[in-house]
């Protein structure tokens, strides 16, 4: 008993506890591999559709190459009614002899050359790792109080959310030393309880065997090709989240942020109540 109290108080001083740090770095690697192998798999058929099947005449997103009037090959990307010249990045990329018709360029796919089955092997291995670590983390967050204490928004933060958004839009950041701000918490919650579950479920819905297990889930997403599209879109949102996350780290003392995520750092233990304490700290 005594022991566990001591244990808990020692932990509380850390800014990021060990499970959070472990999960963070496992996620980093998983997301890199999952994204790059995802694009390898996508390149096998670089087009997306809505519904159950592929209406090849009417994808909502497609990357392809055409031969221009001057004889040069151009990479093109069609998004809905619009077509963009994306030579060098999407549709047709690579330099000199290595130039080829491909959805995404070689520097962002795993492996770099076209090799669908290898991309699939990477993707599914790291998907299991990601799901396993994620499940453990959610259990930890629920039972350790991490979710309630650090991630859930108290009433004042819900109320202050509008202002928070405006401040962020004006690039006015409050580097809070205690806890996360409202918008930050909301984005973590969105990733943890909306985006990641969506990724897993839409991913599973692309499995014909899993469709036999849960046809209703396939219906919920509007068919297999819709599930594939949602999988791709949410992956894009996760990339956006990571970009914003990195920007925020850069703007709020990157050295300290990375160090603390590695070592745990020290939580500023100014005694404050959770209610409304965090919002305007550090102003």
């Amino acid at each position: 008993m005594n022991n566990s109290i001591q244990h808990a108080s020692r932990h509380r001083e850390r800014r990021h506890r060990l499970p959070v740090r472990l999960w963070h770095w496992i996620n980093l690697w998983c997301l890199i591999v999952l994204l790059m192998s995802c694009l390898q798999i996508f390149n096998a058929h670089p087009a997306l559709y809505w519904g159950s099947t592929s209406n090849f005449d009417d994808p909502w997103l497609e990357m392809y190459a055409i031969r221009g009037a001057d004889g040069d090959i151009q990479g093109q990307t069609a998004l809905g009614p619009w077509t963009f010249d994306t030579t060098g990045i999407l549709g047709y990329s690579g330099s000199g002899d290595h130039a080829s018709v491909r959805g995404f360029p070689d520097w962002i796919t795993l492996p770099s050359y076209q090799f669908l089955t290898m991309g699939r092997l990477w993707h599914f291995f790291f998907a299991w790792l990601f799901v396993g670590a994620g499940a453990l983390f959610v259990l930890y967050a629920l039972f350790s109080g991490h979710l309630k204490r650090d991630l859930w928004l108290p009433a004042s933060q819900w109320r202050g959310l509008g202002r928070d958004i405006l401040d962020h839009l004006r690039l006015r950041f409050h580097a809070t030393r205690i806890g996360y701000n409202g918008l930050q918490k909301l984005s973590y919650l969105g990733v943890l309880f909306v985006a990641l579950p969506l990724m897993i479920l839409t991913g599973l819905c692309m499995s014909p065997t899993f469709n036999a297990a849960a046809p209703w889930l396939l219906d919920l997403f509007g068919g297999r090709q819709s599930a594939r599209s949602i999988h791709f879109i949410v992956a894009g949102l996760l990339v956006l989240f990571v970009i914003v996350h990195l920007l925020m780290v850069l703007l709020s003392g990157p050295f300290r942020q990375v160090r603390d995520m590695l070592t745990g750092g020290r939580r500023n233990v100014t005694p404050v109540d959770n209610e409304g304490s965090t919002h305007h700290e550090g102003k």
Partner: protein
Amino acid sequence: MKGNDASSRIFGRGRRRFLQRTALGVATLGLAGCDRLSQNEQVVKTLGLAERLNLRVQRFLAGERGLAPEYPASMIDRHFRPNGSTDPQASRYRQLAASQFREWRLEIGGLVDEPLSLSLAELQTMPSRTQITRHDCVEGWSAIGQWRGPVLADLLERAGVRPEARYVVFHCMDQLGGEDYYYESLDLSEARHPQTILAYSLNDEPLPIANGAPLRLRAERQLGYKMAKYLSGITLVTAFDDIGGGKGGYWEDRGYTWYAGI
């Protein structure tokens, strides 16, 4: 990514260029490393362990008899995209096709009590199952078609599967890429699934050559490459190590996963 005001405030120009170059260098090294890893046998083997987990979990969730979704006739795709071989050139196949497959026979042998040799007409007079199902290519696209043909379990029952048999191997008449003959395999559990049929008809028409005439496999809970086209024979075996490249199928011999349930 373009630098914005905020980041140029943090980094001076020279420092930024240095960081960019470092990042590019690390990325290039990382990419080369990933490619080398993808060619390392041990790495490939380790990554492949996930496929065993896929198989177990998918089978557990779907059950042995869980049915793939079937669709209303209104959802059938008018053109069912063919893939892989679409016009086999092997002389034996050309001859058979020239006479509308009247001379063609399906040989069922291997570990069975009574080997069978069936003509297309005989297969067409057997009790059949008609199903409108979705075909998922490993590349990512899907198409819906209506298939008709005898349930494989009935044929296996008729031939009498010996207890030591574990896999059903499907032999084909097409040489994909002008190389080896295509082949595939299912385990007995999937082969006896109620939706596993040998289809001679697509959308109420005789199976077109592009889609595998005269007879193709439909294994509706797996990806398209499992569903061998241009069938000529079926053998029951205990293991497929000594068939083709030993991995249980044409694409499996080229690194693709055997169960292919996702």
